[in-house]
């Protein structure tokens, strides 16, 4: 297995998005998705904290966004697709999120991707 990618669904390798996560991150996800609207993107960029407070985020969630702590945001229940809207709005992209999640620099991650593994369902070869 290259890059020692584990074949399991446990964090920090994988954050499975479940109902419990959706409850925990409801406001965070809603906030991220609000940035699908160009007018909201503009308002957010003018004053990030104010926009988030209005969206009902708590101080910890606001801190995570301001710090671009993508891993913390995903752990807090922000759905990846919603956090991706936040990243895009602040001039980052999926690679920034991935690099933060994988604990490496963007360039390093881009260099090692695709991270080839080779395995088939049990009983197959």
């Amino acid at each position, binding site marked *: 297995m290259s890059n020692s*990618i*584990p*074949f*399991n*669904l446990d*964090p*920090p*390798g*994988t*954050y*499975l*998005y*479940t*109902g419990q*996560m*959706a409850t925990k991150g*409801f406001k965070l*996800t*809603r906030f991220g*998705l609000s*940035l*699908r*609207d*160009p007018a909201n*993107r503009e308002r957010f960029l003018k004053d990030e904290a104010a926009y988030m407070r209005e969206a009902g985020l708590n101080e910890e969630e606001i801190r995570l966004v301001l710090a671009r702590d993508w891993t913390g945001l*995903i752990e807090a229940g922000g*759905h*990846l*697709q*919603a956090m*991706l*809207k936040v990243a*895009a*709005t602040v001039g980052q992209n*999926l690679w920034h*999120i*991935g*690099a933060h*999640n*994988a*604990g490496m620099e963007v360039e390093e*991650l881009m260099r*090692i*991707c*695709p*991270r*080839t*593994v*080779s*395995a*088939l*369902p*049990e009983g*197959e070869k």
Partner: protein
Amino acid sequence: MARIVGGFGISHTPSMGLEYDKGLAQGFSPRWQKWYDGTRGVKAWLERAAPDRMIIVYNDHLNHFDFSAYPTMAIGVAPEFRQADEGWGLRPFPSLVGDVDLGWHLTEKLVRGGYDLTVCQDLAVDHGIYSWLPYLMDLPWTIPVVPVAINMVRHPIPTSERLHQFGKDIRRAIDSFPGEDRIVVVGTGGMSHQISGARFGIANETLDHYFLEKLKDETEELVAIPQEELMRLGGTEAAELAIWFSMRGALSDKVKEVHRYYTFPAITGCGVVVYEEPA
């Protein structure tokens, strides 16, 4: 009676669409050029197949729906479906033409047959469809479409068994659709990839080839693989492969594979396979 003349399964990713736009404007990157070349056979087949209507089973990525009300299965029934703004503006493509007649026919048969569809008379479609349609079909887009969106963004997602059966029941519903129309059924979902967590970028090409190889004749074997296993080996987004089962289920045992292509340009397995019904 209307009939299904064939169908295809195809990956989708945002980059697949964005790279295409960039490629048109300033030349294609070699990684992606391969994919657009590899899908030309699908375009040619689609022209030959000359469908009067299309059913596209896909998934939304929180670009239209949100968690205030996220449907497990939603069917679009409207005269048109606009493109969703995914957060970086619209791409230069028109709305899809919607197939209201087939949409209500399917709704009637499928809801009465035990599918709890959310019926959308207003629906914006994201890269689930827009990332591949532009290079498989010339403009203007005139073939009316029934989009069916399957939840893949939050667990629980529907089982592979159910999605396969859903395809079979689409086929049964078509059997009673009046007229002589030719119908193509598409199933689209990512192949191996994972775009969050430390496993970001996982690429299991072996798994993807195995899937493409078995989909036609060893469908049941694939359907029996736990979705957890697909995610464990191919990344969480590989669960979207289950959507391909709806396409397969809508086709008969007698289909012929007429095209197949696979590549892995960046962080997602990109594959396509086309099946044609005997005349």
